[in-house]
């Protein structure tokens, strides 16, 4: 572990996606659907996407739920969000491509600068990239196809595999709150992955989402089915240039983990600081199945994300590792949720949050153990690091246990970066910046060490860069 951390410290000058892309718009708008959310607007999106009638009906059902449900009382910072002024569907005017050469130069340049093309060449078995509302590039390596793995834009999967999509779409995560329902009504883009029984996918696949413009709503939907005895590592990346006004992201990830299957789902959320970010992530895990969520929440001005799992079969396991980083008055409300529905199920939630310059982090978690989930075990640990007096952190764990044989642990700790602590580190020869970098590396080391090296470097690099912007740390 130490070597990796040491290595990471060499990469402290990597910049964030926002800094790489700068202030600009990416891609055009060959078609745009905007205005008040209504039946007509939804019908138009459905028409433009030329989708089957069952999907149109699903959207309308979601719209009804959206209109019925109240906005959760506890959400803060949404004053700016005006649902009547956004573009809910933006076609960037790029045909779905299978080679990079077909992608317009300015867009390609963005992917190259962000290292996406390099990642694909070096270690990914499949990649899809989405700009605004549509997937513009998708490619899988032959080995994936040979093994029978399906990796497609969700729109295409609806046509080719309607029965599978119908069975799971918005069923793993039924719209139990307003923004999940809104997502169901407006969704566009995202990928569908199916891993056949017994197939182990040895290297990661990635979906990369980019918002290219201001006042855009982005609603991609990722649906992953890992059949029994299979395994998959899926990476989700998000980025946006610095925007002139806010944009709104409300995505969803639904994962079905079959018996004895394993899915690792890693998110590196690096939206620019104008993006309001919601994401709805849930897995259903069958007997002996395993889901791992890694949520690296670096960017955005406002985030509400809680990777969750329903442990439905015996011995099913969820591990959730969440890093959130809030700066400049941004709010990061994150955590993880788990429902234990069978015996010997286990869950582990490790949350690390860092706040600086009036940033606020919130840990919000739910652990529910249902009657009959005998010997279920759950452990939650949330650590917060406050880098100055202006920053805040709060913890709202919710634990509900109906099973007397269950074992539940919860720990929460707050560390503060004080002058005295810095003095201690400096008295060992470290400069102030070196000391802070080392304190942060150590703080998130147990999560970073679980990530593929490239991503660990990115997360650490992004965080370091953020600190170097502040006078005290710069």
């Amino acid at each position, binding site marked *: 572990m*130490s070597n990796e951390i040491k290595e990471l410290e060499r990469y402290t000058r990597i910049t964030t996606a926002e800094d790489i892309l700068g202030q600009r718009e990416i891609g055009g708008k060959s078609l745009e659907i905007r205005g008040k959310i209504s039946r007509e607007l939804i019908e138009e999106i459905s028409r433009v996407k030329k989708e089957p009638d069952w999907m149109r009906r699903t959207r309308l059902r979601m719209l009804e739920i959206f209109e019925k449900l109240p906005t959760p009382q506890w959400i803060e910072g949404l004053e700016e969000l005006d649902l009547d002024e956004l573009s809910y569907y933006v076609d960037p005017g790029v045909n779905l491509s299978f080679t990079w050469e077909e992608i317009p130069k300015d867009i390609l340049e963005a992917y190259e600068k962000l290292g996406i093309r390099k990642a694909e060449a070096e270690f990914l078995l499949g990649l899809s990239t989405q700009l605004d509302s549509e997937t513009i590039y998708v490619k899988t390596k032959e080995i994936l196809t040979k093994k029978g793995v399906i990796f497609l834009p969700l729109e295409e999967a609806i046509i080719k595999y309607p029965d599978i999509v119908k069975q799971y779409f918005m069923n793993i995560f039924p719209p139990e709150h307003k923004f999940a329902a809104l997502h169901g009504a407006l969704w566009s883009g995202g990928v569908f992955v199916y891993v056949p029984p017994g197939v182990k996918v040895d290297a990661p696949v990635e979906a990369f989402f980019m918002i290219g413009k201001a006042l855009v709503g982005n609603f991609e939907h990722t649906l992953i089915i890992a059949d029994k005895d299979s395994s998959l590592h899926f990476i989700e990346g998000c980025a946006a240039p610095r925007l002139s006004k806010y944009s709104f992201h409300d995505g969803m990830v639904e994962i079905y983990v079959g018996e004895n299957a394993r899915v690792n789902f890693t998110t590196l959320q690096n939206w620019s600081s104008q993006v309001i970010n919601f994401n709805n992530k849930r897995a259903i895990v069958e007997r002996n199945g395993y889901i791992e969520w890694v949520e690296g929440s670096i960017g955005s001005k406002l985030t509400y994300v809680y990777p969750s799992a329903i442990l439905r079969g015996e011995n099913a396991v969820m591990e959730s590792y969440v890093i959130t980083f809030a700066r400049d008055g941004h709010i990061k409300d994150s955590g993880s949720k788990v429902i234990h529905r069978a015996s010997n199920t286990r869950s582990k939630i490790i949350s690390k949050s860092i706040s600086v310059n009036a940033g606020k982090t919130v840990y919000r978690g739910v652990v529910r153990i249902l009657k009959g989930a005998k010997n279920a075990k759950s452990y939650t640990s949330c650590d917060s690091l406050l880098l100055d007096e202006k920053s805040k952190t709060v913890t709202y764990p919710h634990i509900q246990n109906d099973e007397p044989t269950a074992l539940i642990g919860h720990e929460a700790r707050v560390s503060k970066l004080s002058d005295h602590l810095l003095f201690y580190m400096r*008295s060992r020869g470290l400069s102030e910046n070196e000391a802070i970098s080392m304190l942060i590396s*150590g703080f998130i080391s147990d999560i970073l060490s679980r990530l593929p090296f490239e991503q660990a470097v990115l997360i650490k690099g992004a965080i370091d860069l953020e600190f170097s912007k502040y006078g005290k740390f710069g």
Partner: protein
Amino acid sequence: MSKISNKDAVVNDNKGLVVDKLTAGLENRIILRDISLYVRPGEAVALMGPNGSGKSTLAYSIMGHPHYKIFNGKIYLDGEDITDKEPEERYRKGLFLAFQMPPETTVLSRSLYLHIAKSRGYGFSKVLEIMRRIGLGEHVLDRYLNKNFSGGEMKRSELLQMYISSPKYVILDEPDSGIDPDGIMIMSSILKELIDKGVGVIVITHLGRVFREIEPKRVYVLIDGRIALSGDSSLIKLIDEKGYQYIKKIAT
């Protein structure tokens, strides 16, 4: 009673850690007044005094703690004025402060130990060797430095960092509190080795126990922020027998 003058400190060669007429404290409160003391290479001195007399403040001020302000006086390291230097510069010039109560960190012990070792040209094997010698278990390597450390682990960890820092001058702030007799013996032997190698050592304590193996050249007694008394090692016995109240009485 007598006091030792700093005039003895500089013997042509400019060697030594010298605190000269130092007045220091917090922004609005003087804690230390007119402190003068010194240590030369290869010798130990004791800084003794009751609780709250300003010993730790003095240690922090010498190391450059940002909370403490120097109102007057100077600190010299081998003739160089380091009064306004950053703590990390003082460290790089060969000064080391072993904390009485090192703060909890979020750094893995391994990372900082390795950083220190590398900066002084040692490999990790040296870290492990010294850990074994001072009885610091390897399990601390993958724990956060000082977090949930026992008293003995903290002292041993500070001792390890001190050793691998290859210092010229060290200040140990109450290294004998919260550690078992075996720990004190190990510490004494490490200090003896450093002194033999030419390191100047200031030990802050209010007990005399740590000086069984190493005899301090001088003893400074700090009471109410002033050097009330200084002299040879016989002062330790006097304090042991009569206490600080007595020292205070004869000093004034």
